[in-house]
């Protein structure tokens, strides 16, 4: 796993987590903590901004993930990456629903807690952390993976999400470390 680079100043913020509307603040903190432990990214939660009403699609009674991402791009943040968190149900023009969506190699992504809900809150939070990491890795320009038990699996149902450990396959891990170094610099021992 990528660790924090000793030479990088620890104050440097890599990811802004942006709640849209009312979002469980514990979920936001847990996503931030996992972005840090798994990817070595410093993630700061910004104060919540308004409900994403602008992205509501009356015909589908859902919210457009694409529109939210477009809006997040315009948010003034301190970090290279911006990840929105919403409570409402997200969809795209081609998919009935998504847990999250991001620009491949871009700067903005969004995740939704709506379908990740579980009676046991710790399970909900862990699911959110996994989706947050998955979308963040897309921002690094890494696509889906067909290896077994890899967080970059392209078809994550909640069951699969629960079964997959918080890790990548070796090939993805290598790419993640390499691209993190490329995006944020700093010497880092890779490849184990």
């Amino acid at each position, binding site marked *: 796993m990528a660790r924090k680079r000793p030479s990088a100043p620890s104050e440097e913020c890599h990811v802004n987590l942006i709640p849209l509307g009312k979002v469980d603040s514990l979920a936001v903190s847990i996503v931030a903590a996992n972005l840090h432990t798994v990817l070595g990214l410093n993630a700061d939660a910004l104060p919540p901004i308004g409900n994403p009403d602008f992205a509501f699609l009356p015909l589908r009674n859902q919210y457009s993930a*694409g529109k939210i991402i477009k809006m997040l791009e315009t948010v003034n943040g301190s970090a290279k990456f911006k990840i929105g968190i919403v409570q409402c149900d997200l*969809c*795209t*023009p*081609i*998919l*009935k*629903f*998504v847990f999250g*969506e991001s*620009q*491949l190699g871009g700067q903005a992504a969004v995740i939704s807690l709506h379908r990740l809900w579980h009676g046991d809150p710790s399970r909900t939070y862990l699911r959110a952390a996994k989706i947050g990491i998955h979308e963040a890795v*897309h921002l690094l320009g890494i*696509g*889906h993976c*067909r*290896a077994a038990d890899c967080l970059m699996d*392209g*078809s994550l*149902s909640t069951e699969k999400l629960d079964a997959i450990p918080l890790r990548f*396959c*070796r*090939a*993805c891990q*290598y*790419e993640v470390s*390499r691209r993190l170094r490329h995006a944020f610099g700093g010497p880092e*021992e*890779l*490849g*184990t």
Partner: protein
Amino acid sequence: MSLSKRIMVVDDEEMICEALRGWLEKDGFRVDVTFSGQEALKRTEDSFFDIYLVDVKMPGMNGMELLTRLKEVQPEAIIIMMTAHGSIETAVEAMKRGAMDYLCKPFDPDELSLLMGRVMAHKALQEENIALKEQLVESHEGFFDVFIIHSDPMRNIFSTIDEVAKSSAPILITGETGVGKDMVARAIHLRSERSCGPFVAVNCGSVSESLLESELFGHEKGAFTGAIKARRGRLEMASNGTLFMDEVGEISPRMQVSLLRSLEDKSLVRVGGSKSIQSDFRLISATHRDLPALIREKQFREDFYYRINVITINIPPLRERQDDIPVLADHFLKRYTEETGKRLEGFTQRAISLLCSYSWPGNIRELRNVVERAVVIARGRMIGAEELTFLNPCADVASFGPITLEELELNHIRATLDSCNGNMVRASKQLGIDRSTLMRKMKRYNLFRT
């Protein structure tokens, strides 16, 4: 593997096109979009697409018509129809006209993944034969040999190749001489997104250190005596492709430092030069030596080892996958009977058990040579144990009492040289090593003029 597959999305709604593009790119496809049937047909005149995702309802030429036209010009194309208002009749009609599947927008996320998985499996079946068999057998005699897979270890290696091909992680292939490490490297290259780029191989064990340096890094004019003009090195030639460094265990620690620097920065400086040249390649290394042991002996740098060994693929020696021996032997028999026009039906039971009990120090290469020779000397309709007498089954080793690996190697080299009347080219071929390696070993064992 899917990275090189090209998909065309045809839909008059731009939003749908862009959403599909985003999804498919994450799945590793190269995606083009067009907004009408006419435009799509026009694009196929100068570009090739493996897969088409086509909306049924479009102004102008509708999706069904496009489906028919595409199937005329490219019968093997995989075409998937999409619609916002599904009806059974159109679905049936689409399949009749050759569509692979029919989807209703919006899709279930799982549905799309499963479908693309099916599409890729279908493509792989279509291509397995073409790409891995024809093209490669042609371009590289013997390529197929290593992929005669019967045993579980080789099946595992095959699935590992598929898994790791798409990343750019460095790979170390280990295994004895003659097991086909170079072929596995080639297969990885061909299945990677760099398959359009060059595959550049360099054998680090066959040349002196100074020569290897200019071989790898290239040199500027006048860098040393004899450097009458500037030359690109292998690292530079491999840009956007794969660099295969065979016998990486033979590289001196000093050279490992230079290579390490190049691998870190993806750049290099030619011998005698000063400017840094960018080169982005995927590194595959191979060795038959025990690198961790070399590290303990301080002959190999640990940092370099970890840099080249992100993913390891170990190819087991032939004696550890006896299941493959009869299959491989049959394969070579067929090849050489075709070449020589001899009529041979197969191996006798005794011959097969002899082949299976032999230790095959030269692995596949040695087996190939043995079968070739047996075909030449065979008199009957079957190859029997008589034709394989020169094999000296390894069971004999025990009767000599305990001997060291070195003594075994010495005996084997001596016997092979004898059987080749001292012809080093033939002997090295039979031993499955190159001539310079044989010379080195002969020097070590004092075999010259004995």
